[in-house]
């Protein structure tokens, strides 16, 4: 039963996450945190942070970790398969048809219309995570880290892995006072 749940939890993001790996983050959160309750938001954001800091595609890293956490090695295989296989099989099977319709306005519209929906999901998560941080470390630290992270990421274009390291150091230092 657990394997079926894992399969469904990653199959849905795998076939609906238009726009590459990152757009499947909120869809995975929906399944893993909201639906199945395998993780809290805190744990989910730790996972996203680790996924962002490590190399490689993020969707499969999330699948691998959740799969292992829930059901060991076989869980990894099921979760990664559910993430990767459906869209890959579709892509190889429909290649000749798709090549013809690549420029079709209908296919292009699909990605266009789905993008704002993913944006809403991401925004809702942003607020959720900010609220969780507010409750656990207070609004002063939350604001300092959020503004700091925004400036480092957007203004100075610092790599996410380094920004996460800086946040870790901030957290460690803050316990000393």
């Amino acid at each position, binding site marked *: 039963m657990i394997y079926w749940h894992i399969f469904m939890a990653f199959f849905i993001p795998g076939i609906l996450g238009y726009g590459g790996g990152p757009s499947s983050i909120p869809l995975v959160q929906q399944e893993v945190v909201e639906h199945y309750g395998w993780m809290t938001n805190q744990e989910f954001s730790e996972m996203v942070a680790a996924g962002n800091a490590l190399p490689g595609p993020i969707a499969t890293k999330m699948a691998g970790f959740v799969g292992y956490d829930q059901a060991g090695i076989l869980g990894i295989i099921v979760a*990664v398969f559910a993430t990767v296989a459906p869209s890959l099989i579709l*892509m190889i099977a429909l290649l000749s048809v*798709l090549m013809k319709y690549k420029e079709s306005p209908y296919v292009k519209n699909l990605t266009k219309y*789905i993008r704002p929906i993913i*944006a809403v999901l991401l925004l809702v998560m942003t607020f959720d995570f900010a609220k969780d941080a507010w409750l656990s*470390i207070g609004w002063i630290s939350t604001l300092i880290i959020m503004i700091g992270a925004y400036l480092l990421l957007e203004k100075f274009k610092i790599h996410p892995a380094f920004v996460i390291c800086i946040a870790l150091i901030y957290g460690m230092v803050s316990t000393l006072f």
Partner: protein
Amino acid sequence: MLGFGGGPSAIPLVHQEVVKKYKWMEDDEFSDVVALANTMPGPIGTKLAGYIGYRIAGVAGAINAILVSVVPTIILMIVLLFLLQTNKDIPAVQAMASAVVPVVAVMLGILALDFVKKSGESMGWKKTLIILLLSLIAMSLLNIHPAFVILSVFIIVFAPLVKRRNNK
């Protein structure tokens, strides 16, 4: 292994290997594959790996290419997160973990704004705002599962196509 920051950042690295080093594909062909992978759902890095593997060496090639691009980072991820979980009771570790949450919030916020900007540029701000509002209401207030919201987009997009066919 070096594609930090999710699938899309791996594209130029894959290009370097596939087109320049191993010459499995021409430039045109490669950009066709990328365009195609973009129109399909799911993570882009593994779609590229799987398709290119399949082209070169069939099903075994596809499986091989995906394993190589996925397995090392999953192992790293599991080791890292379990280290974190077993040391959870140390206050400093707890504080470090909490400090990461706002950073992730900002990363997701940036990604969201990026998506909004791209939509605004590609289909106009009026349409973008309408979809943003509708999906916010549907998912946050009415608690409709995102899968249904996305599926309804499929129906709206392809409905004119079906209608046109019926009229013929």
